[in-house]
């Protein structure tokens, strides 16, 4: 899977939320830790549903987590 045009702040948000681990985020969203790694590395663009679930896990809006790369 090549890079995606969607940028995200997952890593930053994890550290702002008590240094949440990748596994903890994965468990909160019902995904594997490898998917969190792929998301943070910009190798995978999530579905709209997963994007909302991730945002919900951090208690922020989707636009605070994901951005379109210009």
């Amino acid at each position, binding site marked *: 899977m090549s890079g995606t045009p969607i940028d995200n702040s997952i890593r930053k948000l994890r550290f702002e939320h008590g240094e949440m681990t990748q596994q903890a985020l994965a468990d909160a969203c019902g995904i*594997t830790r*490898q998917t969190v790694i792929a998301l943070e*590395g910009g190798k995978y663009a999530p579905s709209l549903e997963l994007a909302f679930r991730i945002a919900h896990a951090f208690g922020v809006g989707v636009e605070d987590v994901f951005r379109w790369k210009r």
Partner: protein
Amino acid sequence: MSRNLRYLVLVPLSVAAFYVLFVLPDVDLGWAGGLAVLGGAWLVWYLLWATLQESTAAAGRGESAPPVSPGEQRAWIGLVFTAAIVVHYLLRGSQMVADDGSMAPAASAIGRHIGMLVVGWLVVMQLLRRRQRDTVELDERDRQIEARACGWARVGLSVFVIGLAVTFAFSPLERLAWARPMAVANVLVVGLMASCLLEYLATGLAYWRDRRGA
């Protein structure tokens, strides 16, 4: 024993066990000898499997190290077993065809070997599932990777079927003397297994490429 040394010993032993059990012609060793060979082979494969699991667990420790996902593990295991079945077919498939083109007596033994590989595959998958029962096994990214790999397998199978159809349609009859019922059955099974092999390979490579760049 260090993990590298274990690999150095176990990988050639596993290949040798496969060769003895599935490639060499069947020799009657008596029940004790047969059991020893079978038990020894499965023991070597189990030790290799345990070492691989240990490596996987070690790679997954810490946040920085990208671990091997359940989907990737399933893909590599599937690749190993499918490759073993294809290799077995390629090496011994011709022995399944009798002189008159029907099923040779050796076919049942070869079929038993393939059945044994399939049972082994199911057992390994069951063990893996049991180990991973508390974790998410499959998510949307896994499904996306699987769908792409499935596409590759479909293309491979289509090419194979078209190639076979063209061969049958345009080859002179004397060049199709090999195409007896049992031989055609073997070719079809090998084609199907090769498409599965392609699917597992594409899946494994997709995960590996993501992991390597993580």
